[in-house]
């Protein structure tokens, strides 16, 4: 009998210890696509991996820049920036973080398959000064360099080499490597378990260099695609946090009293893109020419869309219709230019007829159904709108797992996309969405290859301009060009909606990042 008592005590202690551990169960509509921080430039992906991998610079709760792996940065010349790196930081596997890892990361982010090419494109050279100092030289003066570095997670050179993950996971070609399933960053959390599409578990990194507000020991992330199931999981206490909250259920969740709903404007702009490059569209009844090359067709599509009905009926007023590719809150947003062309199906019909399509035409449309708020229904509403002017839309809605590889390799004629400038600056949208695609990262998400050389030129100039009034004047000009060309059809800025049990306190950033280091569970 004697030996049982200490055993029992040990078991009890173990049980108590386990129950004291704070677990946060988070559900999102879709899964994080990969654990590789350079594999996909998508908010959920970057937001989740940001808890594991840190950048040189990060953002504070008010979106201001804050030091992370760099303690200080200064401009030593218009094109050269000096970053002092934090000392004594260790990766999760115990390897110390040094300048070599930074150099390696920049090389990796520019390699084939990387989705972060756009962010490192302005960089000409990264030099090691000593183990804890680096110089970054840009091709041209680049005043918002620190902003662009907030999204670039630093990886360990040693770990990547040992795991044969020197090159990023390529989502477009479906090439995976160890970095997809394992992770080794410097962040406040480290990856414990990864089951793609099912469950991802991260646990606290107790060797973290900074104090962490959060008392969460473990975060269990689960994708739950079905809206009703996700709400049911929250209401029944199966999960603690969910995002996004289906618009139709916000009132129901608020009314139950046990849950908070956090709503706020999101920086994301939802828009439609059209293939303006191919001489014949991939899927259309029009053969031998590309109707989207004609501005009148693009304008007809624009004016055929009843954006107010989409706002009130599909989005339940949780959206702000927009005429610009960037929303309020993004630096360079021009409130006075935010005027949409009027909804006018008659004018649209006439435009189509003028362009030589009096009876309309058929076109395929691609749309995700689990990425943005009510994305599938938005596309259906757009298809219905276009039917009124005689355009038959063959709509294919699908999960983002198959959607993104398809449209990122430009296998689409007409698509829906949402964009949050991760630098919180209009230049990001110009460079990624509107500038002519090159293989250097410019226009990487301009999937319909809209092109206007004047806009490209302005984009370059805006990048180097430090004088605000001058910069704004150029932004204005660039936006005007894009609006006049109808390069894309902007739809709206969606509203953020998160919900959690009242025990959990969250910090919601307008960029829709959920940093677990700020989550406190009572």
């Amino acid at each position, binding site marked *: 009998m004697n030996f049982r008592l200490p055993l029992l005590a040990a078991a009890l202690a173990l049980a108590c210890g386990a129950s004291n551990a704070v677990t946060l169960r988070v559900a999102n509509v879709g899964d994080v696509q990969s654990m590789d921080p350079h594999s996909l430039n998508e908010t959920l992906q970057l937001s989740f991996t940001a808890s594991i991998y840190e950048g040189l610079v990060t953002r504070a709760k008010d979106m201001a820049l804050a030091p992370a792996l760099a303690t200080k940065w200064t401009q030593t010349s218009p094109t050269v920036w000096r970053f002092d790196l934090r000392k004594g930081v260790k990766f999760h596997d115990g390897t110390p973080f040094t300048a070599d890892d930074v150099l390696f990361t920049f090389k990796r982010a520019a390699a084939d398959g990387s989705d972060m090419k756009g962010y490192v494109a302005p960089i000409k050279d990264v030099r090691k000064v000593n183990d804890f100092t680096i110089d970054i030289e840009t091709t041209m003066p680049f005043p918002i360099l620190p902003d662009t570095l907030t999204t670039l997670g630093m990886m360990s050179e040693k770990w990547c080499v040992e795991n044969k993950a020197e090159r990023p996971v390529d989502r477009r070609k479906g090439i995976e490597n160890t970095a997809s399933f394992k992770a080794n960053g410097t962040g406040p959390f480290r990856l414990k378990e990864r089951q793609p599409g099912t469950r991802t578990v991260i646990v606290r990194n107790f060797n973290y260099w900074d104090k962490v507000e959060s008392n969460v020991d473990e975060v269990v992330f689960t994708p739950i695609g*079905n809206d009703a199931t996700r709400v049911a999981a929250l209401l029944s206490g199966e999960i603690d946090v969910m995002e996004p909250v289906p618009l139709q259920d916000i009132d129901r969740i608020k009314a139950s009293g046990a849950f908070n709903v956090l709503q706020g404007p999101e920086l994301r702009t939802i828009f439609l893109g059209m293939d303006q490059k191919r001489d014949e569209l991939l899927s259309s009844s029009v053969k031998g020419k590309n109707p989207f090359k004609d501005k009148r067709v693009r304008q007809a599509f624009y004016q055929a869309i009843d954006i107010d*009905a989409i706002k009130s009926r599909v989005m339940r007023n949780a959206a702000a219709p927009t005429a610009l590719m960037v929303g309020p809150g993004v630096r360079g947003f021009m409130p006075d230019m935010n005027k949409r062309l009027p909804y006018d199906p008659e004018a649209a019909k006439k435009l189509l007829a003028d362009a030589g399509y009096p009876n309309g035409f058929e076109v395929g449309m691609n749309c995700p159904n689990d990425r943005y708020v009510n994305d599938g229904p938005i596309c259906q509403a757009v298809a219905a709108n276009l039917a009124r002017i005689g355009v038959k*839309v063959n709509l294919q809605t699908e999960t983002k797992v198959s959607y993104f590889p398809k449209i990122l390799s430009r296998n689409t004629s007409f698509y829906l996309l949402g964009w949050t400038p991760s630098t919180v600056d209009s230049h990001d949208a110009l460079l990624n969405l509107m500038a002519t695609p090159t293989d250097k990262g410019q226009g990487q998400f301009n999937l319909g290859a809209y092109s206007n050389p004047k806009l490209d030129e302005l984009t370059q100039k805006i990048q180097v301009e430090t004088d605000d009034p001058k910069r704004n004047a150029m932004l204005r000009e660039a936006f005007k060009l894009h609006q006049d060309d109808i390069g894309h059809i902007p739809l709206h800025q969606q509203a953020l909606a998160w919900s959690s049990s009242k025990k959990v306190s969250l910090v919601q950033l307008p960029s829709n990042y959920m940093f677990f280091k700020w989550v406190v569970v009572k």
Partner: protein
Amino acid sequence: MRQSLRRFLDSDVWHSFRSSPTAMAAAVIAFICLFCALFANVVAPHNPFDLATLELGDSRLPPAWIEGGRSKYLLGTDDQGRDILSALMYGSRISLFVGLASVLLSMMIGVSLGLLSGFAGGHVDAFIMRVCDVMLSFPSILIALLIDGVGRALFPNAHDTLAFAVLIIAISLTGWVQYARTVRGSTMVERHKEYVQAARVIGVAPLRIMRRHVLPNVMGPVMVLATIQVALAIITEATLSFLGVGVPPTSPSLGTLIRVGNDFLFSGEWWITIFPGAVLVLITLSVNLLGDWLRDALNPRLR
């Protein structure tokens, strides 16, 4: 023609039908569903597949008898402003078409393979039955998803027509095993009966024996199986559409309507999912009851 009708009206089957209220009720319901589906473009008050007529402003209206409902939309509207009643009729047209076509196809595959297997025996039998075993060991939805994926990869830009073809093939390729097993069993019994032996002795070709002599005698259980499989196929189509690999969202089948409506269960807009769900239950139940009755009516041991 008249004679065969008379013969049918005098038969045991018709008598048992007349004396079974369940079977008659099921037949009436199945007929109404089939009629509404077939003549949806005449019967339905709106055409929910004609996108140009959809009024987004009328979306999510409750049924006419509830406050806020409009007589124009008897059973209310869904999130895109489709009239639920019309969508039900057009949707069940898709469901019934896919259901019937896939049952027909799987019946053809299953019966011919089963007949061949049972009649030939030996290696042929062993091979076909092992294929059946393999097919049985996969869940049917998984096979359907696989075929759908391959179909879409092969023809990425084909749309509605391909979606139907893929659905039908996917469902029938998972359904044929049942027929093959059933027919093989019956064929093995029939094969040793005197009339088959006699046909063989006088030198009738095996194919002809199978077709003219064995087939009519094994069709009883096949017909029964088919009625049950129609219901199963409709449910499988609903499941596939629920998973988003079925018909496009702009022409929803019953399954798609249920999936879309599912999202509105918590927000009180129950009609978007309840009505399509009820119709699916009605169709499935009535066809199943008919199948049950037919099995009993045709079973000599129960007479």
